[in-house]
């Protein structure tokens, strides 16, 4: 149901890989919310004790997102949301969402098949909001479920894969341009080159490169990128192959090499997550 995951779109998510959670139970999400909210309060006022279960300034909701799955073996995604209550008017006042983060696993069978029962595999974590909250929530998960969070960077190689894959996807007519951002290394001042291509042109190029629909090879991705590079060279006499690809934006999603992603199309959400899950798994194994 695209409605239920619509709130994940058009937001910047910072990516992390997470090792399997030890003794995590889907049946105890409410308990986790209570404990986490007390932990946040205790962390914000270090040295003062906090009773668990009372209403606090920051409300925590932990819920399950059963739609975000690739295979039957995947665990349901887990959503954590922090919202603030204004202390002036405690009851009935609007709660303001200040931070959200979610764990997911889309077609992560490689990992989940090889892990004993006590462990829950949700190798991809995405966070939106102040890093201070990411840090508190992450620390709590690390302490409680003996897992490790690591920032998940996306290499230029994987970015070029994303560029090729997303070019081939069908979207409605009003699609925006495909944009590739390159950074020129070893300069005293940073220099970024932005390369925008009309989506239909890009698609036409990709269609001539791809041999079998539904299947992509490294060679095809290389050819596709080389074509774009030589086109650019013809006009600007700059070899993009000597620079570093740092960002890819298409109508499907945009991804930055620092490990930041923005989903734009709900129909391709799981597809993108599958690729990111794969990257996360390769980082923790």
């Amino acid at each position, binding site marked *: 149901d695209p409605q239920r995951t619509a709130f994940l779109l058009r937001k910047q998510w910072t990516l992390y890989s997470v*090792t399997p959670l030890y003794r995590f139970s889907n049946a105890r999400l409410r308990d986790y919310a209570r404990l986490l909210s007390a932990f946040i309060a205790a962390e914000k006022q270090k040295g003062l004790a906090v009773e668990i279960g009372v209403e606090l300034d920051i409300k925590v909701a932990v819920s399950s997102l059963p739609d975000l799955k690739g295979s039957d073996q995947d665990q349901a995604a887990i959503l954590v949301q922090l919202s603030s209550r204004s202390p002036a008017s405690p009851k009935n006042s609007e709660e303001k969402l200040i931070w959200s983060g979610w764990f997911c696993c889309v077609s992560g069978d490689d990992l989940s098949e090889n892990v004993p029962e006590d462990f829950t595999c949700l190798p991809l974590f995405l966070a939106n909001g102040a890093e201070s909250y990411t840090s508190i929530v992450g620390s709590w998960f690390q*302490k409680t479920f003996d897992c490790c969070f690591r920032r998940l960077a996306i290499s230029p190689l994987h970015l070029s894969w994303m560029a090729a894959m997303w070019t081939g996807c069908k979207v409605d007519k009003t699609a925006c341009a495909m944009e590739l951002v390159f950074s020129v290394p070893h300069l005293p001042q940073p220099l970024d080159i932005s390369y925008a291509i009309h989506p239909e042109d890009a698609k036409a190029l990709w269609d001539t490169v791809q041999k079998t629909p539904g299947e992509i090879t490294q060679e095809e991705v290389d050819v596709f990128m080389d074509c774009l590079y030589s086109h650019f060279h013809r006009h600007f006499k700059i070899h993009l192959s000597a620079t570093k690809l740092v960002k890819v934006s298409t109508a499907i999603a945009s991804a930055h090499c620092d490990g930041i992603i923005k989903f734009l199309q709900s129909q391709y959400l799981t597809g993108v997550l599958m690729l990111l899950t794969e990257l996360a798994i390769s980082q923790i194994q």
Partner: protein
Amino acid sequence: SKKMQRRQSSKTPTQPLQVHHKNQTDLSAWRKGGRIDPEKSVQNHQSPNDQKNDSKQDSLEQALSYFEKVQDRVSLKKNNILQKHLTTVETIALQRGLPPEGFDVLLNVALSGKLADTVNTRLLKSLVPASVIPETSVVSSVSWLCVSKCSDNVQLLFLRWLITVFDFIDRKEQLHALYGFFFSFLQDEKMCPYVCHLLYLLTRKQSVKPFRIRRLLDLQAKMGMQPHLQALLSLYKLFCPELVTINLPGKMKTYFKNSEGPWKAAINTVRQRNQENSPVSKPLLLGTAQPQSRKRKWNTQLIIPASSTNKNNLEEDREKNHVDLYSMNESFPVEQLQTFSQLLQNIHHLEFPSQMGSVLTNPLLLHYMNCIKDESIYLRLYYWMGQTLQEECTWCVADNNQYEEEFKDFLETVYKTECFLQEGFSSCEVFLYKSLPLWDGFCCRSQILRLVSWIPLSSFSEMKSHLYDPLAQLFFTSSLYFKCSVLESLKELLQNWLNWHVIHLDSESDSEVHSLNTTLSGLVNVVAELIHFVGWISTVALHLENNPTFLLYFILDFYETVCDMYLRYNLPLLIMPPAGVFYPALLSMDSVSLNQLCYIMYRYRTNLVAAKENELSKKKILQFKFSSQTYQEYNQYIIAMVGCLWTSSAFQKDVHPQGLHMDDELLKKTTVQEFKTSFNIVYHPAMMGYAVLFLQQAWPDDTTFNFSLIKKWNWYLEYLYAQGLKGLKVFIESSINRVSQAS
């Protein structure tokens, strides 16, 4: 006996005050500190020291008896008797401590408000236990506290006393029942810090109740951040993390004001005097944030987490407890685990900490880990360590190089843990395989090479591409010192594998399935691969470095393990060193190398002979036989060695394809005279120094260095053996058939 005499004397009518019979007996027992040797006591009866003790004894009994019956409002200034007894109690208490019976009397009088505060204070200050304090006396003092007959200062002093001597109280059951009474004293602002401390000592899991937490939180709201409240609340959190939480700031060091008061020094004196193992108060252990040397990202794993109870499980316990409130399978909090005996007592209900990484710095938990073979333990450690190593590696991750010292410390800790467990971590293996190709061979050198020595033995070997290739590249392009370090760590790697093999041979009879399903042939192949690799890099290194003795020492050290694998480690494998190692050692300029080679060849011989005998006896069908090639190689080397050192025929008889065989024609062209003898034990460059010294001793008048004078090798050999050439000795005695030896 002496005891009898004492009893009689105290019953004499001249005694001014009578003491209870029971106390009296106990007192004398206390005075002598247990059993009395009758003979000795009779002999010593008249000694002045004993008499002094007796009089002290009497006066303490009198004093106690006085305080038991003392009436209200006796003034200290006007009453000499009170002064006398008070001084007696003080003197004896500070010197030897008070007997258990004394506490009831003295606490009663001090807290009843009968006497002036100065007296009460002095009495409380002298309550130094000689052995234990009876629980009943403490309980009755608490009842005095509740009727508040005594002043605030005396109450405070009593609490401080109770905290200091807490571990001397013989039982604590009734005291635990008074938890609520103590808790109610929290309201008093002055007493609050001391009451918190006392509650900290008394709190058990069942003491933690929601209403108490709420009361403490109210106090916190009223008084703000107070270290004593933080400490007590942290303990509550430890027992019931589902009810309350607190994150302590990292800087805090002391949580309770110094409550040891005037007693601590006296207790120590008495303890030293009695030289008993009196209880020692435990240091506070709170889950404080660890000191961080610098600000780092939140998910840095390099800081090894502190051991803390797995909260996740505790909650489940609570859920179980709803059903069975008196369930006994409560787990023991790891924070409280501090001694080996605690580990033994609680091993059946101990839980691993919430973050497995913390076991690295906790030897007790490592012991526990050694006992519990659970896959999830290793998997948790695997993920944590794997991520930490990769994330913090100073040469794989940009911008990490400023943290090299910390990374070194971490690697060191990991290595120590591996040594403790006698087992390598697979996460370390993966890390080494990933990072070695990028390593400069300089950063964290000794730590990395030590970790190499703990690479686990696995049946399917990817060692060549993952370990040997990157290591060889660094080896050939690095300094002599680096080469020696690599050889050293590969020797340790070999020894660790061999030890692993021996241990598993033993446990195999228990028919436990190997965690690594290693077959013997797989093992033999992996070990052989390592030995061939070392043989190869050694040959090249000797070439590159021009045969330095230092390097040769490390190479031969490796072969000292290799030559003994059959007998010492029960592994059916012997591999001879390559000619590129054997000949440089044989022709070395240094007697140390030659001696080492002789020893190694002797051990090869012993192992090969034993293998041959086993093979011939054929008592059991041998799965593995040494190939005839091994024997052949050994024989070739032996011929070369005997030809060199003994029969002076090396150039004729050496049959090794890479050996010393040379035509006479060619040798004559060198114009070396007496070339035949030039490598025997007299003329060998490694031995010539000994030959010169021997000549000087045997023929002091000869100044021509006429080595041909050394004809009787028996004397010369004895001289060499006496110089410590034990390797040469065992080699010659085993491998050379000496006709003259019989004579």
